[in-house]
């Protein structure tokens, strides 16, 4: 099925199941410890061995020798495969750093051997015995240096109007530089796989992946084997946030170990290994210039940024992307430098580009509002746009950012905010208020599904994944709505390469695309039922199909044999002539301690505009989860780079500090009641990434409001303010 034009009125506008607050249907399995994650699937194949990885301990260079004799003779060891034993594996079209093979070391903790043994202890013990000799080379690990050299060079990526002239003639201007650090996804389930490639022919991988079809394709390319010989399963994923979009070393090492030992092998990446072996969000440095008239209208915007990537590319962290679209302004120039560094591979993490871009841009907006003497909410309202400012012929399909701002200001009590640093006190805490806007695109990807109706029970099969987002639940809701069935009569099976390929989970495209795919399959099923009833006028209600004035139970229709249908939703070109996005306004209250400059967030509010909300329960959780991740990004999360040696130093969950309960205050989320007919038949856009956008800047702005100290270098830690606390208040 092809989605060729905006949706008109349809059954979702009178929905019975969609849009209702429905607890996730996989909840009972999860709370009782029964949901099977990749590393514990002992039942899927017998005789599993355990693999343990060994990582390089240099940032760049080559391996001249590896002594594995002791390891191979250690108790319980079934196989040792080192990177010197095999030719360099192909780098798949989704990867940039090679996952294994050859003597070249391109990043710290690159996998250089896998030991396979009967038990984990044996494998780990033997891995310790491998003696590696390196020839270390100098690497380039310094983004700051690259920024200083690159600033102002290269052509603009996009430019409209006459930016230089606009700045020269502007009444009010701003020119500041902001920094965001490297960040880690830090999902709770480590990368894990069980691989069975015992015969060296057919490969089955039970893994933890956001994208089944990509994983399969990558495996095929990496090992140069036919995709048809590979099966991938990933029904439960313990979080991803982008970390599990692409094939990682866990599956590759398990497969190599399995081929060598001729038995299935399970392998999980030890937590301290993940930070440097796998991917992360790149640090960014961003210079933002704004120009406006005294009336507060932006006349020019310039955004120049740098992030680092592994040689070959792949880093989506382009903070300037959003700048093309978010606010009005006739003159604009954006430029992004992808700097190649020898650090581990930078890759997508929740809202790549927007997350770090808004961390900076929304501080700049706050600074500009202050220069103009304007309320930052008013300033943003004034500079709203309903068209792509660089291509005014392209309208936003449905943009209600101004409503987000207004509703948020009202609900938060913005008019009573603190006005001057130090004015509002709560004991020894200086209280501050801040806000920020948020924008995140709403892409869609082709997505397929198969549906089976048997004795009135509907089974939905698609290779879509549920990484905590709620796919099981919203796809069941979609199926139930389409067939007029109660939710209990729908089973959803996910994450198996034997099912039709879906969009997968990522880029905030999962919910919108995969529900549309299930819609398409259900339309096909409805047509098939209508065909069997020899009519084209059918409705589906209360477990019945209603043809003319006859109601036939679906149970009866599908009593003898199951009826199946399969289809794929493709999204038409008309979407290219529109900007489809999601929007939010964030409001935050912080307290900053007057003596120690510790920052504590006290209150957070998000107002979101994301089209139809398919399930308010799962959607709200997505947003507050994002807000919490952004809180970590604002105040504590930072991968520290060892610049001489080229690796992330704080590579565990004690040193990489995500927010804990006590850091997280009262959070509220309001969804505007909006619909976007241009996105899909369900008129629903994603929210999974919107929630992280803009929040950190709101915290930074609130901190400034409390103290009068502008920190432009995340995370906002006390040392950056301690010596500048206000003298009197």
């Amino acid at each position, binding site marked *: 099925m092809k989605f060729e034009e905006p949706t008109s009125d349809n059954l979702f506008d009178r929905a019975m199941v969609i849009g209702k607050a429905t*607890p*996730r249907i*996989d*909840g*009972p*399995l*999860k*709370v*009782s*410890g*029964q*949901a099977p994650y990749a590393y*514990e699937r*002992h039942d899927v194949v017998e005789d599993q061995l355990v693999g343990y990885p060994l990582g390089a301990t240099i940032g760049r260079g080559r391996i001249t020798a590896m002594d594995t004799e002791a390891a191979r003779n250690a108790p319980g060891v079934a196989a040792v495969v080192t990177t010197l034993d095999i030719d360099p594996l192909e780098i798949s079209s989704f990867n940039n750093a090679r996952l294994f093979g050859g003597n070249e070391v391109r990043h710290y903790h690159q996998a250089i051997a896998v030991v396979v043994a009967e*038990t984990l202890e044996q494998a780990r013990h033997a891995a310790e015995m491998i003696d590696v000799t390196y020839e270390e080379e100098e690497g380039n690990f310094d983004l700051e240096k690259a920024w200083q050299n690159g600033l102002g060079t290269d052509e603009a990526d996009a430019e409209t109007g006459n930016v230089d002239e606009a700045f020269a003639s502007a009444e009010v201007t701003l020119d500041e530089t902001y920094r965001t650090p490297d960040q880690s*996804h*830090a*999902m*709770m389930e*480590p990368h894990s796989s069980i691989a069975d490639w015992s015969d060296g022919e057919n490969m089955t991988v039970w893994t933890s992946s956001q994208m089944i079809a990509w994983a399969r394709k990558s495996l095929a390319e990496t090992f140069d084997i036919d995709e048809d010989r590979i099966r991938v399963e990933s029904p439960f*994923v*313990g*979080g991803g*946030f982008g970390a599990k979009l692409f094939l990682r070393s866990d599956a590759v090492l398990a497969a190599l170990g399995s081929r060598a030992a001729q038995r299935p092998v399970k392998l999980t990446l030890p*937590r*301290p290994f993940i930070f440097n072996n796998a991917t992360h969000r790149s640090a960014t440095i961003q210079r933002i210039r704004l120009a406006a008239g005294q009336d507060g209208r932006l006349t020019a915007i310039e955004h120049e940024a740098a992030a680092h990537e592994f040689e070959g590319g792949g880093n989506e962290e382009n903070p300037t992307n959003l700048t093309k679209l978010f606010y009005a302004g006739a003159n604009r120039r954006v430029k992004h430098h992808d700097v190649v560094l020898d650090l581990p591979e930078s890759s997508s993490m929740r809202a790549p580009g927007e997350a770090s871009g808004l961390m900076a841009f929304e501080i700049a907006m706050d600074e500009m509002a202050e220069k103009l003497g304007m309320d930052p909410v008013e300033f943003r309202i004034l500079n709203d746009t309903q068209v792509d400012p660089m291509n005014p012929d392209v309208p936003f399909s449905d943009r209600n950012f101004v409503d987000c701002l207004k509703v948020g200001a009202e609900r938060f009590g913005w008019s009573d905010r603190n006005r001057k640093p130090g004015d509002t006190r709560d004991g*020894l805490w200086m209280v501050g208020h801040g806000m920020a806007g948020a924008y995140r695109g709403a892409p869609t990807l082709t997505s397929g599904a198969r549906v089976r109706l048997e004795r009135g029970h509907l089974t939905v099969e698609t290779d879509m994944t*549920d990484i*905590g*987002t709620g796919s099981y639940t919203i796809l069941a809701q979609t199926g139930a709505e389409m067939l007029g069935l109660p939710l209990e009569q729908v089973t959803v099976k996910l994450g198996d390469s034997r099912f039709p390929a879906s969009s997968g989970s990522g880029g905030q495209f999962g919910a919108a695309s995969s529900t549309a795919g299930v819609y398409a399959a259900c339309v096909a099923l409805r047509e098939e039922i209508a065909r069997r009833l020899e009519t084209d006028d059918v409705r589906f209600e209360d477990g019945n199909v209603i043809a003319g004035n006859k109601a036939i139970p679906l149970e009866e229709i599908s009593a003898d044999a199951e009826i199946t249908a399969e289809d794929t939703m493709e999204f038409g070109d008309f979407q290219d002539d529109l900007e489809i996005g999601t929007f939010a306004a964030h409001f935050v209250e912080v307290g900053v301690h*007057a*003596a120690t*400059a*510790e920052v*504590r967030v006290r209150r957070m509010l998000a107002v979101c505009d994301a089209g139809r909300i398919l399930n308010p*329960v799962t959607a709200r*959780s997505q947003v*507050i989860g994002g*807000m*919490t991740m952004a809180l970590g990004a604002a*105040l*504590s999360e930072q991968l*520290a780079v060892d610049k001489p040696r080229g690796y992330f*130093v704080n590579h*565990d*969950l*004690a040193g990489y*500090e*995500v*927010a*804990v*309960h*006590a850091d*997280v205050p009262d*959070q509220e989320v309001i969804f505007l009641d909006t619909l976007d007919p241009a996105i899909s038949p369900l008129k629903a856009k994603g929210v999974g990434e919107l929630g992280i956008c803009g929040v950190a800047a709101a915290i930074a702005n609130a901190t400034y409001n409390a103290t009068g100290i502008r920190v432009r270098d995340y995370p906002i830690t*006390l*040392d950056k303010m301690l*010596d500048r606390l*206000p*003298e009197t208040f």
Partner: protein
Amino acid sequence: MRDTIRFLKGGQVVELENVGPTETVLDYLRLRCRQTGTKEGCGEGDCGACTVALGRLVDGKLVYQPVNSCILLLGMIDGAELVTVEDLALDSKLHPVQAAMVEFHGSQCGFCTPGFVMSLFTLYHAHGQEKSRKAVTEWIAGNLCRCTGYRPIVDAALDACFDAADDAFSWRANETRELLQKLADSRDVFIGESDSFFSSPATLDGLAALYGQHPDATLVAGATDVGLWITKQLRDLPKMIWLGRIEGLERVESSPSGVLIGAMATYETTEEAMSDLSPDLGVLWKRIGSKQVRASGTVGGNIANGSPIGDTPPALIALGTTLELHSSEGSRALPLEKFFLDYGKQDRNSGEFVTGLFVPRPSSNQAFRCYKISKRFDQDISSVMGAFRFTIDDGTITDARIAYGGMAATPKRAEHAERALTGALMDDPSTWGAGMQALLSDYKPMTDMRASAEYRMETARALLAKALMEISGTAPDEIRVLAIREADNDRAA
């Protein structure tokens, strides 16, 4: 002598003959029992995905505590009831905390969920907790979740955890108590050979003898440090002696003169007595590690471990604590600050172990403050920890004891600052500057990933100012930040 460990699981007594010295409860569950509901997210006590509940008798009452099974040694559950996420649902009916987690959407990707469920299970069984968001937050601070943003979990807890317990565990509590009483015995436990064993003596003399024989053995109290030596540092520790079954070592005795803390007293069991000594200690205690770490970790272990960033030594040193050591040769006591000789080096002889400490109660003319500075509010290691006890007579400081963690290779007193502040006037901040200045000669902190040297020094000075300002109580609003500036001016002058 017993050569097995015994514990309860699912209402049954389990007896194991085969217990490796470094085998963890998590590995036992996942590998030996193939019960994979309990997850491993980090293997080092940071994430709580591996949380299980341990039921023990405390003064005859059955108490459930959350613990991190990834760093808990299997032998340490001897005599306890082990409860895991698989044990909660009855037939297919979810336990009330599980049902609430579903209803309030406390589980998304679900990987953290079994750990949360078990933490909430222990809250469900804790009696007399005040029903508040804050109480819940404190209870589950040791469970990380990257998906939910926590609020749905807190909502689930508020809904499910504060009514009288009414589940299979409360129904069979009497039976469980009887079984646990039967399991308690006073035999020494020794499993293994003389070159590789897990052991758990039942008496102090037994311990002194065994440790005297094997001075190379590893003593383990709560294993919140030792567990990481195993899972993270991959150390070979063939001989393990657990102190958890020695009667009397868990004692906590409060008196007008102070608090006596036995070497096996945990953060949890000492919290009340410490809060009573000083509210600041109460706050500090709550911010050490997490509920899981506090349920297992001991104050004695924190001291014996000798880390320069341990949280309790600075506070206890400032209070004038004495440490008691014992071996087969006899006992001795020494001021706590004398115990820390150098980085990784303590004044402890071969075969000697800590039996307890005595913390004097501040007298009526003494004011005490201590502060922990870390990035996150909970579950975080301090970058700087400062503790201050001032004796104040007629508004003049007549004696000062100041100690910091994170400023030197050991927890260390600020002797220059102490001297400089003696004679300072509480109501005259201009007399404090010399003390703040003197800190510069007391410490040469180092720069590491957690904090730079300048940051540590700046923070140390801010903490001293904070203490003086709070204690002086003289219009703190006006002077609080000024004081730092004045000290700066002093330095410039």
